[in-house]
């Protein structure tokens, strides 16, 4: 036994650093909601520390989800610490509760356990701790503060020297210690305090603390503990209360003792214990009166060494809304990792989409866009959900129809948020003025038309892509003109009974913009037309839009189509956009109708047609392409320039004056030169889709 001398140095101990795992907070939240409710009573919990950290790591005391269980489930190499947790109900009580009292109460438990001998039988009681929390489960904010109580002796604890055992003991002694520890560990798993007896022949034996009385008489009596500290000059926190225990229990026969700070880690398959510390000649404090609680320290300090509680926000791992968002994105990324490394998901998800019409097509396109991770989706519609809608219009339910029916756009957006709260969906309840549906000359009516036009104009300007998903042909005229005038991508889908048409409109760059597209049409058969030379929905028509609902039966006013058609067309419209966004030229991508699989496409998702026309009766698609028409009533240069010059006044003439658009574009003249029969033949196949 080393002798105490004048050169005693003061011992300083490395405090615990709390470490929590995410599961701990999940389990705490669950227990708060299901078990504790409003109880602020201390609840059982167990943490642990280890002595196998590599040098340089902090002295962690860990709490995990399984620490709430009785008995706790800890890793095999862990040393459990009993603890208690208090979950307070308000931030005020968290701030104002008596911290001194909490510290002293927890310290007193340790003090009592030492004096009545419980801690000799179960030394883990020496590492008792307390966790004070306030959980704001709405915002996923967790306030917390740990107490790792350590009792102060009257005089500072000192030692004669601090050395690594590798520098004091030979290999035989180290191996003997390792062996003795292993057999102690298998007999007393999880016990981190013990007595070491090292005989003169270099054989070590480990004993439980309760065997101290019989071991004290032996020559080479040492106190030992599994040391979570990784510092070469300082033992870890658990030693403090062990030394107090030794003083209270054995000071009549022991006043100076050697202490083994046992550390044991394996790196690259090699086990090391030689970095354990040997504290030679630790001077035990005097025995203190059991009636008086010694001073206690132990509130966890922050990294500036201040006593301050902590708060952590866990919304990224606990808020279901945020979880859904990251999950959706990561799942889409799987596509990239597994199949298409060059897929640009950001180009898709960052695209702002405006859906005109929230009927069967609008619902299906919205859902499909969400599937692609698109966040910004605006729906415009002016009608309400009726009883016949929900079975076909996939965002609505029966409840949306009651008491007159909800506004379609609003109901659709509510439903989208229910499906995916991360979506940034907006609803606009507005109508779209149409040519042939006269506005009239009434000032109020004109004002309303002006307001509707402004609404649509603004929406087109603030989105990247406009989907035309309405049920009439003429309602597509204004948005076709606007997307052309504002150079937006326009995707158009229209349905017949068992036919459908999905197309991307030709892209009209702003006047004076160099597109860089070849300007030459390659080949025939409508293949290879540059994106800015492709036609729009109205380019193939030689009649201006008029009121297609007039003189129709009820059947014709509704969309009567095979129910699957809208799902197919809605999906194709979305996929056409996504393919287009993957092309380096985006909207300027030339049309491609090659049907052979081996033809090279510049979009990683394959070819990008101009139009997809489908015939359900034959389960067949064709991919025609057509050029822009210089007399088009919606996108021809003359229409666009008149709109740019006159704005609403021009549009009003188009709404109110029959044949205005035909006269303007020269279509009237074309009629005069053409046989009427032929005209009707041309317009038939497409109008009613």
């Amino acid at each position: 036994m080393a002798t105490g001398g004048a050169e005693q140095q003061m011992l300083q101990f490395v405090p615990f650093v709390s470490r929590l795992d995410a599961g701990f907070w999940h389990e705490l939240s669950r227990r708060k909601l299901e078990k504790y409710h409003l109880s602020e009573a201390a609840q059982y919990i167990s943490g642990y520390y280890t002595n196998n950290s590599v040098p340089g790591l902090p002295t962690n005391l860990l709490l995990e989800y399984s620490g709430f269980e009785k008995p706790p489930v800890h890793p095999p190499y862990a040393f459990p610490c009993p603890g208690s947790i208090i979950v307070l109900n308000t931030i005020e009580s968290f701030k104002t509760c008596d911290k001194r009292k909490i510290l002293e109460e927890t310290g007193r438990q340790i003090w009592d356990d030492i004096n009545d001998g419980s801690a000799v039988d179960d030394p883990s009681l020496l590492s008792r701790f307390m966790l004070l929390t306030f959980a704001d489960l709405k915002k996923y904010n967790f306030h917390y503060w740990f107490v790792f109580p350590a009792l102060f002796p009257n005089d500072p604890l000192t030692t004669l020297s601090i050395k690594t055992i590798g520098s004091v003991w030979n290999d035989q002694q180290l191996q003997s210690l390792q062996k003795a520890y292993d057999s102690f560990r298998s007999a007393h798993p999880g016990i981190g305090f013990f007595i070491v007896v090292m005989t003169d022949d270099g054989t070590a034996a480990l004993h439980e603390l309760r065997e101290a009385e019989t071991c004290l008489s032996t020559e080479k009596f040492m106190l030992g503990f599994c040391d979570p500290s990784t510092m070469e000059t300082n033992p870890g926190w658990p030693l403090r209360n062990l030394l107090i225990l030794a003083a209270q229990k054995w000071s009549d026969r022991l006043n100076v003792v050697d202490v083994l700070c046992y550390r044991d880690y394996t790196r690259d398959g090699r086990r090391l214990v030689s970095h354990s510390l040997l504290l030679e000649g630790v001077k035990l404090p005097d025995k203190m009166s059991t009636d008086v609680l010694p001073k206690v320290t132990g509130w966890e300090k922050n990294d500036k060494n201040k006593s301050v509680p902590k708060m952590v926000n866990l919304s990224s791992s606990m808020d279901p809304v945020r979880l859904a968002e990251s999950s959706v994105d990561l799942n889409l990324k799987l596509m990239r990792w597994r199949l298409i490394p060059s897929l640009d998901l950001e180009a898709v998800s960052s695209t702002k989409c405006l859906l005109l019409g929230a009927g069967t097509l609008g619902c299906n396109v919205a859902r499909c866009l969400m599937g692609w991770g698109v966040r910004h989706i605006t729906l415009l519609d002016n009608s309400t959900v009726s009883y016949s809608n929900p079975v076909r219009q996939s965002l609505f339910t029966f409840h949306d129809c009651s008491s007159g029916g909800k506004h379609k756009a609003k109901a659709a957006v509510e439903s989208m948020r229910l499906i995916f709260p991360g979506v940034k969906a907006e609803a606009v309840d507005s109508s779209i003025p149409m040519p042939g549906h006269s506005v009239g000359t009434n000032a109020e009516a004109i004002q309303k038309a002006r307001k509707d036009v402004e609404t649509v104009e603004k929406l087109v300007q603030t989105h990247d892509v406009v989907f035309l998903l309405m049920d009439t042909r003429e309602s597509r005229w204004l948005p076709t003109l606007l997307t052309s005038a504002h150079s937006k991508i326009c995707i158009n889908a229209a349905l017949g009974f068992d036919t459908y048409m999905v197309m991307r409109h030709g892209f009209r760059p702003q006047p004076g913009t160099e597109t860089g597209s070849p300007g030459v049409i390659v080949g025939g058969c409508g293949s290879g037309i540059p994106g800015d030379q492709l036609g729009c929905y109205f380019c193939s028509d030689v009649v201006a839009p008029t009121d297609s609902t007039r003189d129709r039966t009820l059947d014709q006013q509704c969309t009567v189509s095979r129910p699957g058609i809208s799902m197919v067309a809605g999906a194709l419209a979305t996929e056409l956009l996504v393919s287009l966004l993957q092309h380096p030229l985006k909207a300027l991508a030339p049309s491609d109708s090659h049907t052979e699989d081996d033809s090279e496409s510049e979009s990683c998702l394959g070819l990008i047609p101009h139009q997809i026309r489908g015939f359900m009766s034959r389960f067949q698609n064709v991919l025609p392409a057509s050029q822009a028409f210089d007399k088009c009533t919606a996108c021809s240069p003359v229409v666009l320039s008149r709109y740019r010059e006159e704005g609403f006044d021009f549009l009003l003439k188009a709404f109110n004056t029959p044949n205005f658009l035909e006269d303007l574009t020269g279509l009237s003249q074309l009629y005069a030169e053409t046989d009427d029969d032929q005209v009707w033949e041309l317009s038939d196949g497409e109008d009613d889709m």
Partner: protein
Amino acid sequence: MATGLLTYEEFVRNARDLVVMSDRLGDGWELRHVRQTDGPEETAFLVKRICVAIAEESPVDPETPRDVGEPENIEDEDPATLHCRGTGKLSEKTVQFEYHVIYSPSYQVPVLFFTATFHSGRLVPLKEIWKFLSPFHVTRDSGMEWESVTQQEHPIFGRPFYHLHPCHTSNVMATILTANKHERGDRDIKNYLLSWLTIFGPTIGLNVLIDYLKIDSKT
């Protein structure tokens, strides 16, 4: 096993052997059992934790842990407490990786789930995890086909974990098992789980000690 698939019974047997070897090597694997609420059967899975120091200049987690309120004068100054926080004596920034090996009945292969947390229990975002792992992780952009990490609810605990998608596991394992047969005749590989870990673990910072191959779990 030449199909690259594994039954649950084989998984548990492999896992037990692995833990026996791990205990001898001090490698930290443990086998845990959880009784799920909807079933009478206990589910066994492997757990391992690794705490790693991250470089001081690594991006910190700005949200955590945050001090709240003013420092409080609630206890007496204690000369025996070593103030090592903020002194650079010990790593201030550490991340704990938690690995779970769980059997997937639908893919019939083991699946590697993992998560990484800061001191406060906040999850390290996947982007940051890649940065911490980059030293081990030379193949980051090489498009290795099994490098498909996605977020998934933990099949036992229901909280978010990252996992390596198991869709290629059986193919890769079948290739290895076949190659092994060619080279070593009838001798099966020692432990499917161990071989699997050596292939898939390092991608996410879980290296397997070569010593596993030197010791025999049966003795």
